[in-house]
């Protein structure tokens, strides 16, 4: 067996040229083959790739989908996002647990099944949902959960589930996808979700010089669709202007912001357009390699996307001298993630592509100066690339005429929560919140989460505001909460998410988020005091100022923006403490261990 292990691992490493920067692919392959990456496997990988053991181990320990201990052959990852909680995931969890006879985080004694929680898997519009190996199962109920376990016990092959419950619409039914996921496209706009001509943008782009392409993108005033909103043309100009013979285009398809799922729909229905945009990007900045960083949860789309890449190579839309343009070489590879929210942050994404833990990097240097493998790199969102392809086809003026003021074009919104029609909506920028609520069939609305938990919670006083960069900016995640929801509880659950996903590098983020979460729990337990508000605000600002990446810089937002916009909810439950004692200290619990050891009771409680 040991000899066998050595052989298999050497083969896997050889498949990636023993290149340590491909560590993600190597450890993923080992995990897939053996159900875990054992200490022996780590040693062998380190030998083959000439890496230190700790480099391999740090990758294995960092990502949620990787583990040293072997997991079951079938891993059920149930999504515990806030929206799933609202849709009754706890009952579904009990059903899975009872039917399998194990708790969460456990594996059945026969080593067949592992049951785990997972943060948002990008299915909020069809929650509760779970990932079973690479297979998405959606719209779960307790009965469905039990049925799934029984079906798997008869035939432990997760793909059978997709056909059992009916395939989804559009390309979800494609032979290479075969998924029950629904696109739920509820509103199409004139840029992305309408009918788009094949590669018209790319064909026009190569008639221009790279500088003219960048000028066109700049003239369109396109800004990054991932959330930060940096002008795309400017980013490309910087990347093109940076010194170095080798440059890279990275497409951020790690959408992990709870409540976001629009890139999943784009990759399912407009994959050609996304790759076309990446190719235009490669032409514009002078890159020959593009990487699509696909979140591990979306692995079910990979065969489909690889096939499209293959077709594009065959049609000379990728490869050498693309479309007959002399000297224009560009190809794209897919880099799989492995379950880490932080990798949606561009410098963490770069770390991950380099085969490292998904740690953010210090800036400057910014990726356009020194990114992937320390070479000039432009990281853009899936939707941004798709928009670029359309801009090059229809012209900057056409694009700039859509939207409002400085926010041009359309924006895909992933809308879920308390509404009748959750799904993906393509709106021109400038749409009013009130209109949006009407369109999605939301009633009795108390709050909206704009831009996911790293964005902000808004209440009724902001329903006249508009979605655009100057008013309510968003990467596309919108979650709706009706008047029955406890906003403090919602904020606390989102804090739990950040506690789990912090990479741990910056102390304010690693520790501060835990303290914010604890304080919200204390308030929820009825032990809150008015002074907790100031404490949360101070602590939140410290976390924001003391963290080097976007995660820590925004993670206190669930607490801070609910305090700002739902202050009355807090005030209603906060009472001043009378006696100067801390209500959270429980002496009885604190002496219980010693009482059991000494066999006597404490004299003071």
């Amino acid at each position: 067996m040991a000899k066998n292990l050595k052989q298999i691992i050497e083969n896997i490493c050889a498949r990636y040229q023993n290149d340590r920067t491909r560590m993600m692919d190597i450890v993923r392959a080992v995990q897939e083959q053996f159900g875990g990456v054992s200490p022996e496997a780590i040693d062998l990988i380190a030998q083959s790739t000439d890496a230190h053991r700790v480099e391999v181990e740090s990758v294995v320990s960092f990502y949620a989908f990787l583990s040293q201990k072997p997991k079951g052959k079938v891993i059920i990852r149930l999504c515990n996002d806030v929206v799933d909680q609202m849709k009754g995931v706890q009952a579904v969890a009990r059903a899975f647990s009872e039917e399998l006879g194990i708790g969460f985080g456990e594996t059945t004694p026969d080593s067949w099944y592992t049951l785990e929680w997972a943060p948002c898997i990008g299915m909020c519009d069809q929650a509760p949902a779970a990932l079973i190996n690479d297979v998405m199962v959606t719209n779960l109920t307790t009965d469905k959960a039990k049925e799934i376990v029984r079906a798997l016990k008869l035939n432990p092959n997760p793909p059978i589930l997709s056909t059992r419950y009916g395939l989804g619409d559009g390309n979800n039914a494609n032979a290479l996808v075969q998924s029950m996921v629904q696109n739920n496209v509820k509103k199409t706009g004139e840029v992305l979700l309408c009918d788009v001509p094949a590669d018209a943008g790319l064909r026009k782009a190569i008639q221009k010089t790279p500088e003219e392409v960048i000028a066109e993108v700049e003239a369109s005033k396109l800004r990054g669709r991932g959330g930060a909103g940096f002008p795309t043309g400017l980013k490309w100009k910087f990347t093109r202007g940076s010194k170095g013979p080798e440059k890279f285009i990275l497409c951020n398809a790690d959408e992990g912001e709870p409540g976001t799922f629009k890139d999943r729909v784009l990759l399912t229905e407009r994959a050609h357009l996304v790759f076309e945009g990446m190719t235009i990007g490669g032409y514009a900045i002078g890159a020959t390699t593009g990487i699509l960083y696909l979140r591990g949860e979306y692995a079910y789309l990979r065969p489909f996307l690889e096939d499209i890449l293959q077709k594009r190579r065959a049609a000379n839309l990728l490869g050498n001298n693309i479309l007959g343009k002399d000297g224009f070489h560009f190809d794209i590879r897919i880099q799989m993630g492995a379950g880490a929210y932080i990798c949606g942050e561009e410098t963490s994404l770069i770390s991950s592509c380099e085969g490292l833990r998904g740690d953010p990097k210090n800036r400057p240097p910014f990726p356009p100066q020194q990114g992937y493998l320390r070479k000039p790199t432009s990281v853009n969102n899936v939707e941004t690339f798709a928009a670029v392809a359309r801009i090059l086809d229809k012209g900057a003026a056409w694009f700039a005429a859509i939207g409002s003021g400085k926010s041009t074009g359309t924006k895909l919104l992933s809308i879920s929560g308390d509404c009748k029609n959750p799904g993906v909506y393509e709106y021109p920028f400038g749409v009013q919140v009130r209109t949006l609520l009407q369109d999605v069939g939301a009633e009795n609305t108390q709050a909206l989460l704009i831009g996911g938990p790293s964005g902000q919670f808004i209440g009724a006083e902001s329903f006249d505001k508009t979605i655009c960069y100057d008013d309510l900016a968003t990467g596309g995640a919108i979650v709706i909460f009706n008047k029955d929801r406890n906003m403090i509880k919602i904020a606390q659950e989102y804090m739990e998410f950040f506690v789990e996903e912090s990479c741990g590098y910056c102390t304010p983020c690693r520790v501060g988020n835990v303290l914010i979460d604890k304080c919200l729990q204390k308030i929820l337990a009825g032990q809150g005091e008015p002074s907790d508000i100031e404490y949360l605000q101070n602590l939140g600002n410290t976390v924001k100022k003391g963290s080097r990446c976007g995660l820590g810089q925004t993670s206190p937002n669930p607490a801070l923006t609910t305090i700002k916009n739902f202050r009355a909810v807090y005030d209603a439950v906060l009472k001043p403490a009378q006696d100067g004692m801390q209500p959270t200290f429980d002496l009885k619990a604190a002496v219980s261990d010693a009482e059991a050891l000494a066999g006597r009771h404490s004299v003071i409680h």
Partner: protein
Amino acid sequence: MEKPKIATASLAGCFGCHMSLLDIDDRILKLIELVQFDKSPVDDIKNFTGRCAIGLIEGGCCNEENVHVLKEFRKHCDILVSVGECAIMGGLPALRNGIPLKECLETGYIHGTGVYNPSGKIPNSEDIPLLLNKVYPCHEIVKIDYFLPGCPPPADTIWEACVALLTNKPLDLPYELVKYD
């Protein structure tokens, strides 16, 4: 006019902060002019004689008696100050917080290197306060008004803080007294 009272206690600490308090040298005579010491190891008064203006707490809480004393201080003092690392963060005693209590005691009294204990038992008498499951900083048990960092805080820091509190003036500590690097 009666002088304001000051009380001090050393909980799970090493008395180093009290030593630092004594390090104010002859200024202790000035302090006596300003205040009267109530419950404190300095004068060995065991029980509060009345309401105190200031309570200085050294050390965190490692056992039930510490909790009792700390709560008594909170009840009797207008202003409560955590003095030093142990009171503020748990300090050295809190190093045991990652280890289960049973394991700690067994290592300390039975299995540990160099332990001589023919009885083979963990000491257990009603006179010994029960340990808490971990060491708590004071502010997790009662409200604390001020924190004086240091291990120990320098005598001048304690002196300036007490004077500022007693004279109701703002505290302006030079950088050298609060930097620890």
